[in-house]
């Protein structure tokens, strides 16, 4: 597991991009899983996991104080597992996606705890903040950033360390064929993406016709290619 430390650092850097700094969407699963795959020597496999997760992540709208899954560390774990397994064996991509989804679920809970931690730090600094202390304001901001980095790095490290051996063992006893395994996960990812697209866009006038038009173009492109 020589890759654990670099992956944890990658998870930390991409994890803070999700909320705290700089929100440039390096934390999107498409980007994070591809980078993680590249870290372990298989960017192509990483992007396949990233694309499946990106389809599922379309349903996540990070509005205000809403609670949502943490995709960045999750995608690093999923992309790295699929990349490290580095095999055409049936189920490798499915297992990578499953590991990422489990990490995203746990990661969402760690985000809530981080926000509670930030609130606790702010309460402790309340007298200084009320006195207009510049140091307290800057200190809180830096403490929040650091805490988020540590949270995301630890999450990535722990989930990768726990899930990688499990996924490798699971793959050893995987019985479904590759077409079935891949087709199942792609169906689910496409279903979540389709439902998300409908939920987000259906209120715009004519959006369903735009979607139908796009579908026609997409299908034609498939035949042309």
């Amino acid at each position, binding site marked *: 597991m020589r890759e654990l430390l670099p992956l944890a650092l990658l998870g930390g850097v991409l994890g803070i991009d999700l909320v705290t700094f700089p929100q440039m969407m390096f934390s999107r699963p498409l980007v994070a899983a591809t980078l993680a795959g590249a870290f372990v020597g298989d960017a192509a496999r990483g992007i396949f996991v990233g694309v499946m997760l990106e389809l599922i992540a379309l*349903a996540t709208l990070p509005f205000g104080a809403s609670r949502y899954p943490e995709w960045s560390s999750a995608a690093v774990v999923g992309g790295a597992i699929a990349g490290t397994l580095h095999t055409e064996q049936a189920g490798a991509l499915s297992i990578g996606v499953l590991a990422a989804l489990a990490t995203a679920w746990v990661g969402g809970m760690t985000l809530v705890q981080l926000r509670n931690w930030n609130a606790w730090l702010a309460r402790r600094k309340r007298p200084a903040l009320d006195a207009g202390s510049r140091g307290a304001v800057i200190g809180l901001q830096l403490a929040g950033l650091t805490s988020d980095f540590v949270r995301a790095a630890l999450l990535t490290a722990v989930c990768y360390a726990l899930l990688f051996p499990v996924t490798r063992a699971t793959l050893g006893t995987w019985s479904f064929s590759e077409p079935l395994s891949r087709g199942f996960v792609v169906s689910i990812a496409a279903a979540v993406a389709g439902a998300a697209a409908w939920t987000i866009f259906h209120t715009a006038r004519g959006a369903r016709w*735009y979607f139908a038009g796009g579908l026609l173009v997409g299908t034609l492109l498939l035949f042309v290619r």
Partner: protein
Amino acid sequence: MITAAAQASIMSPAPRLSALTWVNIFSRTLAIQGSWNYETLIGNGIGFCVEPALRMLPGGVKGPSFKTAMTRQSAYFNAHPYFASVAVGALARVELSGVPAPHIERFRTALTGPLGSVGDRLVWAGWLPFCSLIALTCFGLGMAPVPVLVTFLALYNAGHLALRVWGLHVGWTRGLGVASALGNPVLRQGPAHLARAAAATAGVAVPLTAARLLGHHVALLGVVLGAAAIAAVLLVRLQGRVEGYKVALVLIALFALVSVAR
């Protein structure tokens, strides 16, 4: 209601800030959610971002004006993180223009709602899914990993960074009158246009992406898309009661269990 003093501050020429101060403020806006929490939300982040401008208040960082302004600006605030730059620019302007404290506090409170809802609709439910779907289309068309990522990041951040720069500029130049900027046609009609563009892109992206993900097993595409369509309808019917990723997690976990156990 805006008093004569407040009106005068809108009309008065903006105080001058050095280029370095602007760079400092802008780079801080990228970390505006650094200490986000359920009690003050991005309040501390607003104080963190306007702080370089507040140093120009009489007496500098040790003066009472600076400390009072810091206390005021670090209190509870809610906004979309990109649109918060509008508030940062406007609040820095009114503080340096000597607008009376009660007006600043009322103005700050009034900014909270619109800057949240406009940003959520335009960015989280519009620009981000649109850019994501464009990247997925690129992937579906067979592009290599690096061009797919570059397309996504360049497109998304062109909009993202332009929005932050525009926000700071419009906030600073309009001060107390910044509300009129939120009536900009791009902000009012942009979400609906983006939604239609994203819906069309989703239509293109889903079959192309699914086909490439299936690789050698592309003959399954019809079955996969048919099953996905049925499952999507079921998910839409369950809207609000279940999250898509949790459904995916449970179904894939069950699939893996059956695969291992049989």
